[in-house]
């Protein structure tokens, strides 16, 4: 646990809470794990457990929305205790400061009223925030206070007002509302004079309950806003939670959504936490080890949230590019994808099929004619074969006998280097793309395998549960192909040397095992051979799984030891 993270003043409480929650979570999710595996051969396939953590696995905790709400409540209570304000106010203050307690305390001690105004708790003119925040909600009867409601507000003018331009009129004509004092109060938004229930924040801008409800609902539902300001123009007061809850008392789903937005804001403000990116999943993952960018050069934080789902909600804590890009770290994975996406291919084609004028560096493609080139741009004359200046060739028009001129040799060297670089890139790219494609095709393989499993049940006396080994094998193949895919991205950037050779040895072993298993899965089913096939597939699956583990384990260790050397500058490595 790093101590230099922003909310460190309360680390102890924070994690105690965490631990407590996680144990509850474990109890909740453990049986479901078993449900998913419902497999008699579970012991055959080493399923990593929490107790024996592999070095390529990263410590993380899955937190439910309720757990996060408890963390928020703890923060709020803490601030509320220190400042002596009610919890609604403390919550607004924290939200305003993006849940950064230290900064809030510092700023608040410095100038409490300014912070309160900025957080939308009190009006600029009022003095102590606690006094106005003490009673943030005021309901009023239809006629009781209509005279005191400031109805007329001038329209905002941008820039300096022009003296002769029409003065922006008052909204509803202040004159009218003054004259209409005895009349019942009319909501200035819906103009419905039959409304009887009015609400206002401490700014006394009154509106009917129906309008408040419609307003708060649109803010939450359509804008996803967690800080809901007063409806009056240029009034920056923020509605406290109790007010929002009161307004939404008949709409629990929207109130629920509001709470979810608050949780999201809290999670978004805390570098240790990340929301599970799967659609409509409400789990949060806490992974303090990966909260700092610098940590991402040594670990690949692939985490999994506590939701019970197939496939499980796996994602990378450090980057949004792909759910599981182990064993390669985020920075390198990102660089590789960028390289593939950019038309680096185009650049490479240009490099391999064209030459540059040795004088003005214009790119030239020779599409015919003799080797005596004249640059269209700078009129430089040179030999296409040796790239040296033509003047050295004398009158030898059609053949180049000057191969050993230094300039020519240099130019040719540069040319062949870029050709080799293209070939090198294509080598890695083709294998990368191939594994990606194969992993994608696993859906097809699944349905094929399912058919085979049915066949087996019919042709042999195996039970359904006994043919599950096929499914297991397909899962393993897909998992390993994802690993393999990323090892090619990694190998492309690894610097030549013993370490790289070891890496590629591991890669080769894994690849060979995966291809063997793949082939077995595709093979024809013969009733007599099923028992031996089953034995083979099960053995191979275990072997492949081991190889995959070795690959991941060794690479992860390499990152921790700083063993990998890159042939380019990678972000974070200096």
């Amino acid at each position, binding site marked *: 646990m790093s101590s230099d993270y922003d909310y460190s003043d309360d680390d102890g409480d924070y994690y105690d809470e965490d631990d407590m929650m996680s144990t509850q979570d474990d109890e909740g999710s453990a049986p479901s794990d078993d449900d998913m595996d419902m497999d008699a051969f579970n012991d055959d396939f080493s399923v990593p457990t929490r107790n024996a953590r592999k070095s390529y696995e990263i410590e993380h905790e899955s937190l439910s929305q309720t757990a996060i709400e408890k963390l928020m409540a703890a923060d709020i209570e803490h601030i509320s205790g220190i400042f002596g304000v009610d919890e609604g106010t403390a919550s607004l203050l924290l939200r305003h400061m993006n849940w950064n307690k230290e900064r809030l305390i510092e700023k608040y001690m410095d100038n409490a009223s300014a912070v309160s105004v900025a957080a939308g708790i009190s009006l600029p003119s009022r003095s102590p925030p606690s006094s106005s925040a003490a009673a943030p909600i005021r309901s009023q009867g239809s006629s009781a206070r209509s005279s005191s409601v400031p109805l007329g507000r001038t329209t905002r003018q941008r820039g300096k007002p022009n003296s002769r331009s029409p003065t922006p009129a008052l909204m509803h004509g202040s004159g009218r509302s003054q004259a209409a004092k005895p009349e019942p109060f009319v909501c200035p938004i*819906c103009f419905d004079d039959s409304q009887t229930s009015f609400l206002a924040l401490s700014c006394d801008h009154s509106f009917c309950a129906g309008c408040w409800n419609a307003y708060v609902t649109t803010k939450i539902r359509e804008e996803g806003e967690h800080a809901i300001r007063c409806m009056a123009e240029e009034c920056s007061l923020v509605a406290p939670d109790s007010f929002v809850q009161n307004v939404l008392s008949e709409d629990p789903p929207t109130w629920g959504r509001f709470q979810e937005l608050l949780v999201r804001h809290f999670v978004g403000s805390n570098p240790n936490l990340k929301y599970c990116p799967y659609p409509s999943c409400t789990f949060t993952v806490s992974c303090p080890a990966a909260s700092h960018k610098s940590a991402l050069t040594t670990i690949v934080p692939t985490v999994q949230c506590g939701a019970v789902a197939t496939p499980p909600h796996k994602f990378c804590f450090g980057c949004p590019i792909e759910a599981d890009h182990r064993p390669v770290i985020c920075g390198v994975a990102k660089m590789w994808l960028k390289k593939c996406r950019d038309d680096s291919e185009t650049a490479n084609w240009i490099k391999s099929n064209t030459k540059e004028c040795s004088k003005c560096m214009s790119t030239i493609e020779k599409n015919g004619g003799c080797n005596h080139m004249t640059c269209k741009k700078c009129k430089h004359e040179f030999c296409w074969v040796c790239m040296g200046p033509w003047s050295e060739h004398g009158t030898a028009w059609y053949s180049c006998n000057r191969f050993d001129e230094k300039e020519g040799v240099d130019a040719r060297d540069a040319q062949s280097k870029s050709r080799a670089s293209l070939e090198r890139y294509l080598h890695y790219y083709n294998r990368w793309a191939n594994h990606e494609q194969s992993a994608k095709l696993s859906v097809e393989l699944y349905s094929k395998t399912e058919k085979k499993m049915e066949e087996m049940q019919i042709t042999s006396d195996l039970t359904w549960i006994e043919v599950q080994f096929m499914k297991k094998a397909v899962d393993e193949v897909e998992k390993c192909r994802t690993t393999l895919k990323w090892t090619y991205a990694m190998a492309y950037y690894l610097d030549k040397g013993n370490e790289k050779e070891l890496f590629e040895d591991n890669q080769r072993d894994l690849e060979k095992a995966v291809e063997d298993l793949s082939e077995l899965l595709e093979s024809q089913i013969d009733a007599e051979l099923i028992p031996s096939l089953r034995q083979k597939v099960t053995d191979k699956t275990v072997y492949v799984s081991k190889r995959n583990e070795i690959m991941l384990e060794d690479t992860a260790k390499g990152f921790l030891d700083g063993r990998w050397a890159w042939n380019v500058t990678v972000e974070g490595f200096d």
Partner: protein
Amino acid sequence: MDARLRRVNKEIADCKNDRSSNIRIDLIDSSPFHLKGSFPGPQDTPYEGGHFEVDIVIPDSYPFQPVKMKFITKVYHPNVSSASGAICLDILKDAWSPVLTLKSTLISLQSLLCSPEPNDPQDAEVAKHYTTSKRSFDDTARYWTQIYAGGPGSRGKTETKESVRDEVAIAGLEKAHVDQFEALGFERGKVIDVLRRLNYRGANVSKITEDRIVEELLK
């Protein structure tokens, strides 16, 4: 009755009753949620004397979401798109408040014409023109008011006799500059386009070389 309909009806009625502000709101068709607002150009601005029409669409969640407004009348203004009439104004976006009305929003548009904000432009070319040469910008804005918004010609000045729309003036360029490059054999429309894009006005004239312009013209 639907709260939105009641509110819009009330706003239209209020606007009809109030003649002092010179703001009008009219129905375009039978729907009360698609309206046309109009107001006179503010005095002492290049828009003076013009009559500006605004297309108003009232969204389903009005007044809790802002109205959608854009100019029907072409306006030469940094915060208004010269092509589509789209408006860049905070109260039409995040600074909207449900207590604002159609009338007050139209008044805000009117005051936007008084005080352009070239630092937050909708139309970058117009904004560049504004910051390079305010005087030249004013001439062009006045010309646009005259031909698109039915504004009067500059009283007693030379331009009044022009009846055809002068493309050069619409683009806010100098006739002499356009003629100069047209004489090199380029199409007039293209010259206007390139000069406008390069903002060949005021102090910029001396900064942009003729070669650069010819290069652009050859593209």
